[in-house]
């Protein structure tokens, strides 16, 4: 608990103080799996998490994202040098654009701003059936919707059963059920594939 409070105070300081923006990286709370074991505010099972936000980016002003939640709630999300940003792959804040969808996790500051530890931009995790396979594309049936999933050479990978991720997606066949982790192309029915999980 001491760790939680120390970290919360440090991150708040980092965001609220101008010079502290760089200091946020010193928290060591970025991409590694260990970051998610570091702390979490006590939230009752079933309840909403105040340190989490989702929605679409309305505007970007400096390091602040103004986000309209899917439920209509407005969020101010502050990104620091210490925030990990994912958009198909780990990337930098300059790749984030207005209109993007996101999930964000961080620390809710007293003024309501969410100081972000992690931002996942346009991330989707779809369970679907493969309806068609084309050159560098998969056509997916997802809850009655057709999704066009683009394979991105150098980034897209497949996990077959228990195997390590491989770049060879040739084992994906029409009719297979798959889980596709990827990045949505805003305002389309298209995504880019990060990882396809398939049983073969």
């Amino acid at each position, binding site marked *: 608990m001491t760790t939680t409070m120390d970290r919360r105070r440090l991150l708040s300081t980092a965001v609220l103080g101008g010079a502290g923006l760089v200091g946020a990286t010193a928290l060591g709370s970025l991409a590694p*799996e260990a970051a998610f074991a570091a702390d*979490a505010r006590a939230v009752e*099972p079933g309840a909403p998490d105040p340190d*989490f936000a989702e929605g679409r980016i309305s505007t970007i002003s400096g390091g602040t994202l103004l986000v309209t939640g899917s439920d209509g709630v407005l969020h101010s999300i502050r990104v620091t040098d210490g925030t990990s940003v994912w958009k198909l792959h780990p990337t930098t804040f300059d790749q984030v654009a207005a209109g993007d969808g996101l999930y964000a996790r961080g620390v809710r500051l007293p003024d309501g701003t969410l100081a972000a530890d992690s931002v996942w931009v346009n991330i989707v995790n779809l369970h679907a059936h493969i309806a068609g396979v084309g050159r560098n594309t998969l056509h997916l049936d997802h809850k009655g919707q057709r999704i066009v999933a683009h394979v991105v050479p150098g980034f897209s990978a497949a996990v077959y059963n228990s195997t390590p991720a491989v770049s060879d997606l040739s084992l994906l066949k029409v009719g297979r059920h798959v*889980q596709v*982790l990827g990045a949505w192309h805003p305002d389309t029915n298209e995504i880019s594939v990060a990882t396809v*999980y398939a049983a073969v």
Partner: protein
Amino acid sequence: MAALVGEMSWFCCGNAWGPCGSTGRGACGTCNSGNYQHAWPNASAACFTITRPDSCGVSMARRGCGFRHYTTNLCNGARIGTTIADCGPQTDLFCGERSCCGSACGTNRIIDLTPAAYSAIASLSSGLRPCSVDIV
């Protein structure tokens, strides 16, 4: 009662953007991506006939909407409490699938967490992680 060990993933529900916009509030009618909730393969008899964890050799108790489970990410030991809000994952479609972090492994999909819950114990970009599920 021993913890159930397997795999966890995440799913979106409730108000949402993109392809998630069509997912609805889940079998219990209460599911929201921002809440600490989860899908359970044996949330009802009707649910069980779809997910069929037994076909993968997984035995899990029937527990209905609102029941609390506690999920531990076996990669980092982080733990979270969530309530049942939907039916899933469809365990039988990935029978025998195995995820590991070093020597910590889980076989077969046993739980899907909402983005808020999953991201509290793992990165959403990890997609799939070994886990244990308990009731206390």
